[in-house]
C-alpha cells in the first residue's frame, strides 16, 4: 500500500449506495493483497484478500479488484450501511506476509 502523507483520504456515501475505495501499490513483485477495516478504537479487521494470479475476488457485499498493469487495487462495498463507516486500508506483500506494506487508509463515512 502507498502512503498518502498526512492527510487521510475521505469518502462519503449515502446509505444504500455502492462504495469504491482505491489503493495504489508500488512494488511490482507484490503477489498478495489484503484489505482491512478499522473502526474507531479497534484494531484492524480482515475483510478480503487476493493473490496476484487473480484479478477479482468476491466476498459478502465486498469485491476486490486487482489491476497489476497499473498496480492498483480497489475495494467495492455493495449497498453500503452505517456499520461500514470506518477507515479502510490495503496492504501488499511478497511471498509470505512478513513484509506486509500498509497504506495510510481511507475514511469511509456513510450518511443515513
Amino acid at each position, binding site marked *: 500500500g502507498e502512503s498518502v*502523507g498526512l492527510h487521510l483520504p475521505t469518502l462519503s456515501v449515502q446509505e444504500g449506495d455502492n462504495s469504491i475505495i482505491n489503493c495504489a501499490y508500488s512494488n511490482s513483485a507484490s503477489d498478495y493483497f489484503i484489505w482491512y477495516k478499522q473502526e474507531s478504537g*479497534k*484494531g484492524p479487521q*480482515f475483510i478480503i484478500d487476493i493473490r496476484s494470479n487473480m484479478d477479482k475476488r468476491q466476498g459478502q457485499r465486498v469485491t476486490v479488484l486487482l489491476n497489476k498493469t497499473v498496480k492498483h487495487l480497489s475495494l467495492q462495498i455493495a449497498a453500503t450501511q452505517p456499520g461500514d463507516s470506518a477507515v479502510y486500508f490495503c496492504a501488499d506483500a511478497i511471498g509470505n506476509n*512478513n*513484509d506486509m506494506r500498509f497504506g495510510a487508509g481511507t475514511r469511509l463515512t456513510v450518511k443515513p
Partner: protein
Amino acid sequence: DVKVTQSSRYLVKRTGEKVFLECVQDMDHENMFWYRQDPGLGLRLIYFSYDVKMKEKGDIPEGYSVSREKKERFSLILESASTNQTSMYLCASSERDEQYFGPGTRLTVT
C-alpha cells in the same frame, strides 16, 4: 476465532520511563508483529518474530526492543520512552497470510 490481546488499551508514561507492551495470541501462530500507527502514515512495522527467541527489525526499530520467550507472547519494550513515541501500538499474529490484530494500545508519553 483467533484472539490477539494486548495488555493495556491506554497507557500514559513519562519521558525516560521503561515501558512494556504485552501481546498474547491464542492460535499457536508462528509469526508475531508490532506496528505503530500514526495519523496519515498508516501502519509501520517496528519488529517481528517468526519463532520463539527469534526477532527481526522492521522499518522503524530505533528506540524499541522486543522479547519472545514463549510462542504465544510477544513483548515490545521502550527502553527510555520519548514524546515522539506517543502513538497507537498494534500487535498482530499470523500463520501464513492474513495478520490478525489486537485492539491496540494508545500510549502517551509526557
